[in-house]
């Protein structure tokens, strides 16, 4: 457990939100060989242990991890149930996963996610995730959705602040 904490400090997550394109790039390095990091994405019982938000239980309903396959899972937080689904466009072992991602509460929205696994040698791996959505507005909402109280309150707060200063 302490090893994981130390790794977390050394391998900080980097985020880039491109100003001109509706993308988010997340980069993170891991103190594990690429085969192992890939397995943590490939096997649903492993995926369920880390993917969901803190305090939720991940229920993976469908996980056909192969090119042309599909997936769906739910994050359960008490009575609340938030579900997501998508397709695997390409699964290239230990190199690349390309998938779509949709929040079932907003079926018109879809992001294309490209995850690249890079062998850094010495049993280390760099994971780069590029997400592409349909508009800059959607991208910014995704980033703002991390805000406590959700995106609507986030927007309201920004509106309030902008009103106060104008």
């Amino acid at each position: 457990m302490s090893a994981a904490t130390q790794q977390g400090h050394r391998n900080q997550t980097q985020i880039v939100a491109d100003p001109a394109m509706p993308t988010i790039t997340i980069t993170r390095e891991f103190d594990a060989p690429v085969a192992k990091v890939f397995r943590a994405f490939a096997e649903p019982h492993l995926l369920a242990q880390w993917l969901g938000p803190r305090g939720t239980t991940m229920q993976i309903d469908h996980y056909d991890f192969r090119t042309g396959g599909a997936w769906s899972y739910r994050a359960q937080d008490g009575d609340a149930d938030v579900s997501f689904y998508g397709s695997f466009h390409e699964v290239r072992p230990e190199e690349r996963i390309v998938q779509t991602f949709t929040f079932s509460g907003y079926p018109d929205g879809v992001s294309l996610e490209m995850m690249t696994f890079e062998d850094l040698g010495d049993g280390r791996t760099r994971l780069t995730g590029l997400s592409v959505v349909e508009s800059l507005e959607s991208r910014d909402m995704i980033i703002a959705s991390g805000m406590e109280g959700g995106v609507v309150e986030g927007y309201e707060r920004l509106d309030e602040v902008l009103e106060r200063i104008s």
Partner: protein
Amino acid sequence: MAADPLSRVFAALADPTRRDLVARLAVRDATVNELAAPYDVSVQAVSKHLKVLEDAGLVSRSRDAQRRPCHLEAEVFDLMTRWIERYRREAEERFQRLDAVLVRMTDEEPEATGPQDETGAAAS
């Protein structure tokens, strides 16, 4: 440029010159001429950058004063950096859980690429 306020702030902060202007205004208010001085660009170009920051609500200019110094609206700036940082932190927490899963995988299945190496890596 996108029309909604959130996108305007993101786009405004995406430019390196504008980020630099924000950093300098965080120290103290300054006029356009003062802000333009260190750059190899015209006052007009800096004015354009300031206009973008102003439209995004990040910078305000006093209307009455002769010098019309620019003022950083730190509250808006903080809000944006908090949003991005919060998003980043959630990703980081997720990856720290993945770190822990990777360590557990090592313990469970040490045969993957050589037991000594992997056990050593997990213990370090």
